[in-house]
């Protein structure tokens, strides 16, 4: 084997690996769509609360969970059916964090462990962990920093109790979820067209 041939083979291997990574990378659509959906749903729930239509809040929560699952189903890339370690760890992280959020929202407040008003603070802390880990998994600094946005949001939530909480939630969702989704999507587009 000549040196040129060896070099060609090395470049072919690198190209193959890079193309595979680009094709199987996270497109960011999951973040963008689910972020916008939750922003709308959160505003809707706040509106129902302000109109004293508390009985409808549960319906809205169920719609939110089902809607989120549907968006997740259609936006997590399945077309190639290629499994990557990154996506396996990512899905596991979010499954574990979602489980924790479900327990801290629907179980512990009813066991009188803490008041319902504590739930958003705890939820934002856990989401911050999941977002931070997501950034590390996808090697995207902007997403790693978004974890701090969620933790800052949790501090904000702990300090206020009125409608300001909604504004904090919406700002956190946009800055800590939709924006990183847009960044991931741009990164994905760049890598796909490279």
């Amino acid at each position, binding site marked *: 084997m000549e040196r040129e041939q060896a070099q060609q*083979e090395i470049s072919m291997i690198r190209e193959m690996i890079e193309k595979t990574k680009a094709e199987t990378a996270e497109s960011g659509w999951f973040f963008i769509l689910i972020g916008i959906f939750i922003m709308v749903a959160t505003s809707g729930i706040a509106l129902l609360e302000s109109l004293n239509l508390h009985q409808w809040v549960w319906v809205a929560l169920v719609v939110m969970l089902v809607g989120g699952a549907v968006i997740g189903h259609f936006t997590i890339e399945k077309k190639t059916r290629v499994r990557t370690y990154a996506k396996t760890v990512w899905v596991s992280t979010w499954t574990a964090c979602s489980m924790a959020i479900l327990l801290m929202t629907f179980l512990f407040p009813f066991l009188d462990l803490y008041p319902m008003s504590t739930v958003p603070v705890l939820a934002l802390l856990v989401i911050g962990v999941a977002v931070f880990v997501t950034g590390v998994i996808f090697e995207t600094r902007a997403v790693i920093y978004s974890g701090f946005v969620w933790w800052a949001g949790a501090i904000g939530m702990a300090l206020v109790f009125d409608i300001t909480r909604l504004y904090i939630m919406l700002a956190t969702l946009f800055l800590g979820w939709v924006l990183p989704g847009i960044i991931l999507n741009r990164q994905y587009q760049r890598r796909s067209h490279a």
Partner: protein
Amino acid sequence: MNHAQILQLDPLIHAPIRLGILSILVAVESAPFSYLKDRLDTSDGNLSTHLTKLEQAGYVSIEKSFQGKRPLTTCFMTEMGRKAFETYLEQLERIVKTTKSGE
């Protein structure tokens, strides 16, 4: 570059299609047969032959299942395959380096 270095290269990996299969599988956890076929632009029979050779060598493992009514063949790289691929890449780099310094 000397003759001994060429002989050291794993002949099982050296074939272009097999090298392509391992280059894809090293970047993922698993890939379906159809994905490998599309990426390598080869026929079912050809890919199947190369995959069988890699499986017999213990470099890949193949799992057959069903998705609905359609058969699904999923390919994984084994730990042995990963080590063999790394060694192969190191040897290629060594060839490039030694011929460079020997010029």
